[in-house]
């Protein structure tokens, strides 16, 4: 489904990604782990189309389609979803208005009729329960005054509503207490499907106790330096990154 070949990307002239190669098939869950500064978040942002990052070479395709040629909104409509590490607060735009606009943009793209406000409210209320968010949050500004955990749950709620082909979860576990982590993990597990790929970017192994990946990759210095099964995550937890020859401080 997702194919990344020799991807190089830089920000403000500094190269961050130095030749990423990654293949993810439909139905698979991949985890990318690595120390801070290894390029994990850059990879997520580049895939979503943040033009603060410049792709200098390489190729990214989603189901054969060249993602790099598409605008951010077009990628989203083709099924790319990024759960942000730091979801932005947008006072003045209500969460429900935002969610409905997003869902209807997708529906319009697929040639489906738009959902009415009433119809959508019903769907949004049900989905908010699935991630244990009080439906009152729907009326508030997008992420406005949400706690860290609420923001992350709101991200997962969006994934559930938008039903992407490729869900990229950027540090979705950071800042969550164990209860919130379980709720988020349940949400992500509900997303697992035969026709969907999930890419989890994480610093810690603990999320992977709840969302068990099929493959684990270690990203360091802008390259994937090791790939393996879920047991690789446990090994990293136990031994740190040092045994792979990564100096965590130097990587920053």
């Amino acid at each position: 489904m997702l194919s990344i070949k020799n991807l190089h990307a830089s920000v403000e002239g500094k190269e961050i990604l130095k030749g990423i190669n990654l293949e993810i098939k439909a139905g698979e869950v991949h985890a990318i782990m690595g120390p801070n500064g290894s390029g994990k978040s850059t990879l997520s942002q580049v895939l979503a189309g943040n033009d603060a990052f410049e792709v200098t070479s390489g190729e990214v395709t989603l189901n054969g389609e060249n993602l790099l040629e598409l605008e951010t909104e077009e990628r989203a409509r083709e099924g790319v979803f990024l759960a942000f590490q730091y979801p932005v607060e947008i006072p003045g735009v209500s969460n429900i208005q935002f969610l409905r606009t997003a869902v209807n943009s997708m529906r319009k793209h697929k040639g489906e009729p738009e959902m009415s406000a009433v119809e959508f409210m019903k769907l949004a209320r049900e989905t908010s329960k699935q991630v244990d968010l009080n439906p009152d949050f729907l009326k508030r500004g997008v992420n406005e005054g949400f706690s860290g955990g609420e923001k992350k749950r709101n991200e997962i709620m969006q994934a559930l509503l938008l039903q992407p082909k490729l869900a990229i979860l950027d540090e979705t576990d950071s800042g969550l207490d164990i209860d919130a982590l379980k709720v988020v993990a349940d949400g992500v597990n509900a997303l697992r499907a035969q026709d969907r790929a999930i890419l989890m970017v994480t610093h810690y192994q603990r999320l992977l106790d709840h969302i068990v990946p099929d493959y684990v990759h270690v990203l360091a210095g802008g390259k994937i330096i090791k790939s393996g099964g879920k047991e690789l995550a446990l090994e990293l937890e136990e031994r740190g990154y040092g045994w792979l020859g990564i100096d965590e401080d130097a990587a920053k």
Partner: protein
Amino acid sequence: MNPQATLSGAFLQSAGSTLPDALKTMRQQRATALADMPVPTRKTENWKYSSRHLQLDDSLAGTLVGGSSNTAFHNGDAYRVVIRNGQLDLDASELPDVSGVEVLAFRNLEDADAAQLAERLDNTLDSKAVQFARLNSARFEDGLLIRLAKNAVLDKPLFVFCENGGDKAGSAYPRIYVEAGQHSQLTLVEEYTSVGEAQALVNTVTEFSLADGANITSVRLTIEGQQTQHIGATAARLQANARFESHCVGFGGPLRRHDLRVCLEGKGAECKLNGVAVTQGQQHLDNHTVIEHVAPHCESEESYRNIAADKSHAVFNGRIHIHPDAQKSNANMSNKNLLLSTGAEIDTKPELEIYADDVKCAHGATVGQLDEESLFYLVSRGIDRKEAGTLLSMAFINELIEQIPVEPVRDAAHARLVRFIEQSFEGA
């Protein structure tokens, strides 16, 4: 234009009208006094940014006539006054029949009432600051007088539809005077629209005189066509414990100028002034506000926001003047601006002049662009850029629009702003 020019004499020829003698005399006196009115130039401080957009060709001097209209004035559950080119159209109006409330046309006033009005007109204005209000006083041909007796309450909003335009170029001088007795209450909505295609100059004056404890809410929408220059003035004088609330929504044009002056003359008076302005293309819009804190223990709260797109230009000048006796004044002024393109321009100038020592005053002005991070977040959910930009722009002004207390006006203003801002993103 010659920088020394005075207003062309053509503008001072009042057409014959059916006004009562006292008002005709007053108007004539104003015209005489105006004979040497200098036309504002770049060097005129309060017209610094707008003088070059001012177009006072003699062809605009004549009074607008015609401009056939099929407008159906929908206003929901409210009273209605229609003013066409400055003349009240009583047939199209729906006047209140409420005890203590009089809604009258200047032209129909009894002699004694006309004489009293002639004394009072202009008394809320600072004629040095609002040159064009003087022109209105020399040219109005009719007007709307609203008198509220002590304790009178108008149960529903009064909508004033001011429709201006004609078959050939000209000008119109709509005039409104509100005399609010003690503890009376009124919500007045003014909506300025255009008809016809001819070049037009619309020069308005609306005055509010509030006795002790009177409470007035004023909503003002300017949604005129691109053939219309609008130069309007609104002024209010408040006695003790009176309250004045104003909501202005302005859409850009070749020239849109509004001067708002509130004079807090009685102890404990308060005002709240909200304004939203949007411009696009080559449009120009200029809001000047003045709040005079004359008496002690008065409060003013002001918030204006502008959104400028393309190569348009918006101006805000807000002055708060705390007089020496106005101890314990509490004044708060904020002006926030959003630029949607690098070619757009905003000029903002908050001015505080404080002559009392025990006061609380705050002011702030910001100019910014759409937040890239927010925009990326929205488009990453499949929302197109035009819609995302519109959502974020509306978020910038929603807080003020939501405070418009008359629901149909609020909804209509909101919908119109969304359409306008969407246009600003088209082709961007």
